[in-house]
């Protein structure tokens, strides 16, 4: 089986700051890391590989420095990695990103299962996973908290979370899933994995390699235009309630009643 994991390199959320004048993230001096949801996607793929055999390939679209995220992935049990990088890919929205990723996965020869994190913690759209599935014509399920391969039917049995509960679905392979962080606990990297990752050859594929029309990728292929961004201001009054839990609940109930909410 071939498992492909799509990952994104994001700035370390704990340390990133926002430039309110330019409306952009201040990335200088902030360490880049693998999007946390994608760590769970990697772990899910590696666990399935350990169970069923096969290979795990990690793929990302990003600037040249995104290669370090792929090396981190290789230290976590991923077998090989590909970087999709080209100036033409810059400024991509979710649509253009899915075009690029889909081309990358096709060039790899397709996949039995594609794993994505539910969303990236910088853009927070949660659209790339399902968008990619649609583009590749794969069955898919998003927000997965459990996963099991059913050999007899060549299906993935998954637990999909909703606000109100969950669905148990069986989806036929080839398929794509986007995972929640509760699906597993990502392993720590291994030293042998890190040593292997350091030496690994990571091919870089550009628009030409993928046979992509540059007008359909990156900023020029993106119907979404970011006009302006701003930092939300929190001006609401805040109050810390004192006392033990019972007292706090009583006070809160009174406040809500006073405000006419209850």
């Amino acid at each position: 089986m071939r498992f492909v994991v799509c990952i994104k390199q994001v700035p370390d959320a704990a340390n990133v700051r926002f430039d309110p004048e330019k409306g952009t993230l201040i990335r200088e001096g902030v360490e880049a890391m693998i999007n946390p949801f994608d760590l769970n996607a990697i772990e899910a793929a590696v666990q399935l590989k350990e169970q069923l055999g096969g290979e795990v390939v990690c793929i990302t679209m990003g600037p040249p420095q995104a290669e370090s995220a792929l090396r981190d992935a290789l230290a976590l049990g991923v077998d090989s990695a590909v970087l999709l990088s080209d100036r033409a890919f810059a400024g991509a929205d979710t649509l253009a990103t899915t075009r690029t990723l889909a081309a990358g996965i096709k060039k790899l020869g397709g996949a039995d299962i594609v794993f994505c994190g539910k969303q990236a913690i910088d853009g927070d759209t949660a659209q790339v996973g399902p968008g990619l599935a649609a583009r590749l014509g794969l069955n898919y399920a998003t927000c997965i908290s459990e996963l099991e391969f059913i050999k007899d039917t060549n299906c993935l049995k998954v637990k999909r979370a909703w606000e109100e509960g969950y669905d148990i679905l069986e989806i036929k392979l080839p398929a794509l899933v986007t995972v929640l962080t509760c699906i597993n606990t990502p392993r720590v990297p291994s030293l042998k994995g890190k040593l292997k990752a350091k030496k690994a050859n990571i091919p870089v594929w550009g628009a030409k390699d993928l046979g992509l029309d540059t007008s359909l990728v990156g900023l020029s292929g993106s119907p979404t235009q970011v006009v302006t961004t701003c930092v939300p201001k929190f001006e609401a009054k805040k109050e810390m309630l004192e006392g033990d839990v019972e007292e706090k609940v009583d006070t809160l109930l009174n406040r809500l009643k006073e405000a006419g909410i209850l």
Partner: protein
Amino acid sequence: MGKVNYFLTEEQQMIVDLARQIAEEKIVPVRAELDEKEEFPWDIMKDLAQADLFGLYIPEEYGGLGGGCFENCLALEQLAWGCIAVTTTYAASALGGYPILLFGNDEQKSKYLPDIASGKKLAAFGLTEANAGSDAGAIQTTAVEDGDYWVLNGTKQWITNGGEAEIYTIIALTDKHKGPRGASAFIVEKSDPGFSFGKKERKMGLRASATRELIFNDCRIPKDRLLGRRGQGFIIAMKTLDLARPGIGAIGVGLAQAALDEAVKYAKERIQFGQPIMSFQAIQHMLADMATQIEAARALVYSVARTIDAGEKDIAKLAAMAKLFATDMAMKVTTDAVQILGGYGYMKDYPVEKMMRDAKILQIYEGTNQIQRNVIGQALNKEYTIKKK
């Protein structure tokens, strides 16, 4: 920030980063609970195994990474920054593995080292008895030849990883009247007949580590479990401890660094007399001494570990110095950290009280610091006698 350059290779830095990541992500969040419940850290042992850290000092042909004492010290220091009870559990497996590495024959190494290197099995080392602590020569556990077997009788005390480890290296008397040549070393497996465990000790600190009696009651083990030669037991024990002692120094350095980190963080936040207590010279001077002592200890531990890896054979004095200096330092630094945090430092809400409780064992186990001074003193006596000639 000016940091001392210890000229680590890329691989060595990788070990530091990985051990630190495990300390931060896996150890720190659970250390207080493990301490409170006296719970053995199996989950973290599995993480350390997954990370390949159990095989640092084991040659590649036995599934390890082929590192030495220094690589081991680097990992121990970072893990100890998280919790020394967890770190001691990890280190004790190496203490049980060293005799096999140093004195085992090919079959013994092939049989036991791969499982120790992969972390599939924990190891432990059994020398101490109720009446034989600093006076190791007073052990009473015996091993008697009986056909194709050795039969062990006696009780080992305070054995780290007792009951949890699968592989034990045990020092027992084989010829009572031969004095220093009267003991031998054996490999005992957890499932061997006649081998059982006594009560789990309740301790002041190091509470997540398992410390138990090993009870040998006509414990029969095959003849090929003898390590090295008959009569070599005390030599094996001493060589093992010599190799392990810089690691205990490294644990002291990591623990003290954690205490300093907490103390500085607190001193910058704690307001008294209208300003952070960091601004008071009394506090600054304490922190300055702590930081300086830590760096001095680190430099000593690293230098000794590297000297060992460079092939120096006469290491008893150096290893004792590294253990002595770094662990006395750790006791002082953790005590001072509690002092800087004041009443808060004495409370369980902050981690420094545990660090101080834990630190005390470092001055006691793997040879008390008084014994370390004996080793250093005796080495000096010998060195200067030779020089006179």
